[in-house]
């Protein structure tokens, strides 16, 4: 049995504006995460990946579907009933400057979940445990006594990770934990997450828009586009033989730092896709508007997520035409 299972999970938001419209942010998503597994979720901003992560932790309500934790449904629980589960399911937020209370020291912030979940615990014991976690992520006591505005983004993100770990959770949603950071600091935080993954055997959903970061950390990767999962597979397969055109595009977007990068980029310049932000009809493939391989069929029939080889799923009508994966744009 998987640790966490999602079946047909959808999240809808009422859009304000002229007529009351509903925006489907997450559209019937299924997946499962096993014990100790780190699953990657990639997609661009607004594709619903953050909403999906938040829906698991009941920070946004589900419109449909179910979430099971160790086989038990948890999507119907009220906030109070959910509270004991917060010991097991935690969240690492994207922007460390925003998710720490500016009026609390790092130590206070990290100790807070301990107090909230067990008000009878002893303050000194809480502080000791919090500092232990902070030490684990490389924040010494003198830094822990400071306020967020006195520290750098990298240091704050370490504290945010410590806060998620302080209750010894079994599962963590990591929502873009490095994208607000400098590139050099990103590498350090990715290293830290790698270490935590190996030492604690923690299960997690790792959300990012950067495929290079996700591939570094997660064995299995899901690609999301406009609320739907478009491809799932083992990371090597995804990187070396992407089956969905959107995955290909994400791969092409990973910045190269070699001399050829500039040439590839300039070649790409001519290919920016107009109309990429138009709302696709519900019956169509959401990617049809910007897909270089689009067929008339794609505009009227939504491709289902189908098996394509071992532990591999893809939602594309033409996936069968390139069993070896889509070639990079530069070579095309």
């Amino acid at each position, binding site marked *: 049995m998987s640790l966490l299972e999602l079946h047909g999970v959808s999240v809808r938001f009422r859009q304000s504006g002229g007529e009351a419209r509903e925006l489907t942010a997450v559209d019937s998503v299924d997946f499962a995460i096993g014990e100790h597994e780190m699953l990657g979720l990639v997609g661009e901003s607004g594709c619903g990946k953050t909403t999906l992560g938040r829906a698991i932790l009941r920070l946004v309500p589900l419109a449909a579907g179910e979430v099971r934790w160790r086989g038990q449904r948890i999507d119907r629980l009220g906030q109070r009933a959910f509270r004991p589960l917060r*010991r097991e399911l935690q969240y690492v937020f*994207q922007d460390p400057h925003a998710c720490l209370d500016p009026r609390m020291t790092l130590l206070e912030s990290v100790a807070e979940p301990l107090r909230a979940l067990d008000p009878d615990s002893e303050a000194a014991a809480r502080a000791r445990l919090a500092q232990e976690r902070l030490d684990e992520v490389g924040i010494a006591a003198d830094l822990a006594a400071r306020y967020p505005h006195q520290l750098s983004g990298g240091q704050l993100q370490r504290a945010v990770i410590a806060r998620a770990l302080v209750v010894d959770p079994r599962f963590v949603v990591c929502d873009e934990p490095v994208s607000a950071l400098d590139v050099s600091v990103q590498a350090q935080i990715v290293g830290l997450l790698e270490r935590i993954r190996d030492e604690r055997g923690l299960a997690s959903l790792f959300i990012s828009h950067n495929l290079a970061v996700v591939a570094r950390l997660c064995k299995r990767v899901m690609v999301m586009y406009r609320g739907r999962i478009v491809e799932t597979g083992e990371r090597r397969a995804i990187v070396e033989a992407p089956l969905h055109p959107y995955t290909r595009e994400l791969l092409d977007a990973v910045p190269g730092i070699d001399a050829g990068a500039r040439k590839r980029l300039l070649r790409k310049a001519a290919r920016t896709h107009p109309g990429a932000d138009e709302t696709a009809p519900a019956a169509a493939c959401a990617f049809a508007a910007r897909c270089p391989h689009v067929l008339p069929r794609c505009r009227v029939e939504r491709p289902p997520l189908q098996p394509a080889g071992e532990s591999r799923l893809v939602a594309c009508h033409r996936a069968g035409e390139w069993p070896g994966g889509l070639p990079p744009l530069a070579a095309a």
Partner: protein
Amino acid sequence: MKGGLWRDALGQLRGDRAAMTGSVVLAFLVLAAIVGPVFIGFREDEIDWANMAASPFEADGHWLGTDRLGRDLLLRTLLGLRVSLAIALAATLVSLVIGVSWGALAGYLRGRADALMMRFVDVLYALPQVFFVIILTVVFGRGPLTLLVAIGAFGWLTMARIVRGQALALREREFVEAAVVGGAGTLRIVARHIVPNLLGPVIVYATLTVPQVILVESFLSFLGIGIQEPLASLGNLIADGAGEMETAPWMLAVPAGCLVLLVFSFNFLGDGLRDALDPRDR
């Protein structure tokens, strides 16, 4: 409370000349109102038959002259200042406690609870304050306590609105969500995350409330429905003085000057605090 953050704000406040002048003048006024009367060689109700309505230049021993009944004007002004300050501080305290908790809770809960709580505030807003005070004085008689209840009952409304607006914005911040993930309940989030983060605007607004309340008190006393003789307040002293404006202008000038000084220094301090506590400037 939080050493580091408040120290920063204090440091910036020190560099603000207007705010520093304001707080020095304010400290002087408060001190004078509390201990000043002791050093004046007259009693509150002592009537100096030799000096009635005497100007500061002709009255013997009365530094700022006397009123119609020959009472020392400096002493009366200081006592009036004491009463006015006490009412202002008490009313501000009421507005802080009720206004902040009401507003923070409404803003955090949103939805129906918020709508109900704020409609209640709107209803109170719609009541004309002066009539309310008149009714209160008819029922409970005139006096400082009635005045305090009257001012307190309305003083927290604006505070509640300000705080609610801030709380609505704060509850959308990610650190509030992080506290939810950490298992914190509603009361804890309001007390530990919402309220501390809106103290800045609250303190600023409170310093601006004090002079407002003093003005309202003065206004009501001036109309004769506030503090009554023989008890002095800045308001009824000014009302008295206004009556004698042509024959004894100092009777108006002394308490009015005191009021102006007080209101100015509170406003300067409030402006300075607003700048110092605004985290965007740091």
